[in-house]
C-alpha cells in the first residue's frame, strides 16, 4: 500500500549567532523519518525542546527543512513550487484561546482558508461553513459570534472546523487537548476519533500524555534533542522499549497503574 505522507531524514538547524565570522548553528532536527497511511495516527512524543513542534511546522510548510524529503502521495512537496499540497495538510494548535482571531467572527475565521484557496462563491462558502460546523458538533448559527463567547472546548471545535474547511487528508495536531479541562479533553478526543472514521483522516498527534498516545494512535515516534530515538507501532514500542529515553518517559507516567495494582 502506498503511504500517504512520508518523511525521509528531515534535518533542520537554526542560526544562533549573527556574527559572520563565527557562525554557529543549533541542530533542532537530526534526521527524522516516518511513514503514515490514510486513516492512521502517528504520535510524536518527547520532552519540551526535543523538536516536536519544529517537525509539525515543517509538515505544514511553515518552515523549510535543510535537507531531507517529504513525500505526499508520492511526490516531494518540498520541491513543489505551486504550493498546492497545503490544502491537504492542515494544523490544529494547542491553545484555542490564542489561535483564533478575537476580532473576527467564527465565519470570517472559517472562511479565510476557502478564500485563500480561491474556492467557490460566497454562497457555496456559506454552505460549507454550515456543513463543517455541523460536522464538529456545533450549531451553524454560531458562525456569526465571536470567539470570546465560546468555552475552551467549543473553541477547540472551531479550530478543528477551520482545519477541516479544505477537506484535508492529514491533520497535524500540536497538543490539541493539553490546554483543556479533563472532562472536555475526552469530548475532543472522541470528536477526533469520529472524524477519523468518517473522513479517513490521518493524524500527526503531538503529545506528552502517554496514556492518551497509547489510546489514540497506531504508531509512535519518540524524540530526544532532535534525534529520532524510536519509531514503531504503539504496542511494540511501549511494551519493549529499546532506548533509554522511551523507558524514562514510560517510567515517569506509569505511576497510575502501579498505584492501582499495589
Amino acid at each position: 500500500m502506498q503511504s500517504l505522507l512520508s518523511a525521509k531524514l528531515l534535518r533542520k538547524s537554526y542560526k544562533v549567532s549573527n556574527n559572520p565570522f563565527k557562525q554557529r548553528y543549533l541542530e533542532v532536527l537530526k534526521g527524522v523519518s516516518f511513514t503514515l497511511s490514510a486513516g492512521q495516527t502517528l504520535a510524536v512524543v518527547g520532552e519540551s525542546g526535543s523538536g516536536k513542534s519544529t517537525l509539525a511546522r515543517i509538515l505544514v510548510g511553515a518552515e523549510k527543512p535543510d535537507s531531507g524529503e517529504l513525500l505526499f502521495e508520492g511526490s516531494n512537496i518540498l520541491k513543489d513550487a505551486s504550493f498546492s499540497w497545503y490544502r491537504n495538510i492542515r494544523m490544529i494548535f494547542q491553545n484555542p484561546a490564542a489561535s483564533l482571531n478575537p476580532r473576527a467572527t467564527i465565519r470570517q475565521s472559517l472562511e479565510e482558508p476557502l478564500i485563500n484557496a480561491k474556492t467557490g462563491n460566497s454562497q457555496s462558502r456559506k454552505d460549507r461553513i454550515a456543513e463543517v460546523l455541523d460536522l464538529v458538533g456545533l450549531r451553524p448559527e454560531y458562525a456569526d459570534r465571536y470567539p470570546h463567547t465560546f468555552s475552551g472546548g467549543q473553541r477547540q471545535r472551531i479550530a478543528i472546523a477551520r482545519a477541516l474547511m479544505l477537506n484535508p487528508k492529514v491533520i497535524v495536531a500540536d497538543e490539541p487537548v493539553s490546554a483543556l479541562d479533563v472532562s472536555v479533553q475526552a469530548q475532543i478526543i472522541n470528536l477526533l476519533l469520529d472524524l477519523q472514521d468518517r473522513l479517513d483522516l490521518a493524524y500527526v498527534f503531538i503529545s506528552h500524555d502517554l496514556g492518551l498516545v497509547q489510546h489514540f494512535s497506531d504508531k509512535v515516534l519518540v524524540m530526544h534533542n532532535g534525534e529520532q530515538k524510536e519509531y514503531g507501532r504503539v504496542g511494540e514500542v511501549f511494551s519493549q522499549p529499546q532506548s533509554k529515553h522511551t523507558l524514562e518517559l514510560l517510567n515517569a507516567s506509569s505511576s497510575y497503574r502501579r498505584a492501582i495494582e499495589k
Partner: protein
Amino acid sequence: MSLLQIENLNVDFMTDDGLVRAVDKVKLSIDNGQVIGVIGESGSGKSVMALAIAGLLSPAARMQADLFNLDGHDLTRMSPAERHKLITGNISIIFQEPTSSLNPALTIGYQLDETIRFHEGGTTKQRKDRALELLAQVGIMDAKRRYKEYPHQLSGGLNQRVMIAIALACQPKLLIADEPTTALDVTVQSQILDLLLKVKEEHNMALMLITHDFSILAETTTKVHVMYCGQIVESGRTYNLLSQPYHPYTKALLDSVPHFGMRYKKGRRLFNLPGSTPPISHLPVGCYLGPRCPYAAKKCVQAPELFNIKGRRVRCHFPLIEEEES
C-alpha cells in the same frame, strides 16, 4: 491531633455580577506528616481554597469559616497581625509556574536570603550558609554557582527546586503545592514529586497537593478531596476513591482520561460528560453537576448535602454504591 482543621470555609468575591461564592463550605483536616490531595478542574475553586488557607487572598475576597484551627490555635479569634505571624511561620505555598513566581530581576541567592532574613535573621555569613544548605537539600548540585544566578539562567525544574527551597526556609509544618508540576515535562515532573516527598519525610511536614491529574495523586497521597464548583463533592482514602468512585463526577473524571498501562482497544470512545464546567457566577439550581450528570433525576434540583457513607463523604443523592453490590 490534626495540624489543620477547617470547617465550613466560604470565600466570596465581589464582582460585577454580585457576590460570587468561589469556595463553598469546605471541610478539611490534615494531620502532621500526612499527604492529602485536592483534585478538580479549572474554576473548581481549589486554588482559591489554597490561597485562603495560606492567608494570601486579595482584599476583594471575603473569607469566613466556622472553624479554622492551625496547630491547636484558633485562627478565627485572632487579631490579623497574630494570624499573619502564625500562618507565615507554619504554612508555605509553592505555585504552578516557577519561572514567573520568582522575581526575574533578582538573583536566586537574594530571593532566598530575603526569606531567611524574615524568618530567622542572623548574620550575612549565617544566612548564606543556610541558603546554600537549603539549595543542597533540594538537590541542586552546584549551589554556590546557582546562588549568584538569575531565574532565567535556570531550567523550569531547577526553578521549581528553588521555589521549594524558599518554601522550606521557614521550616513549615504544612506545605501547599498548587499544581507544582503542571508546567514541567513528564520526566522532570516525577523528579519534583520525589523531591517533595523526600523533604516531607525529612522535615516531617504535612503536604497538600493540588492538581488535576489523578496519576500524581495515586502515587503520593493518602487522602483525596474532589472539588467541583467550589464544593467538595467527594473525599476519602486515595485507593478506595480511585478504585471505586461513589460520586458521578469522580467517576467521570477517572473515565475520561485514558490511563497509561491500562488496556484499551483503539477506537474505543472515551466516556465524557456533556457540556463544560459552569461559570461560578451562573451556577445551576440544586446539584451543580445536575445538568451534566448522566444519573440525574428529579430529586437533583434540591442541593445535596455532604454525608458520610462507608468512611467516605459524598455530595450526591444517588451515590454509585447500589450498582456495585448487585
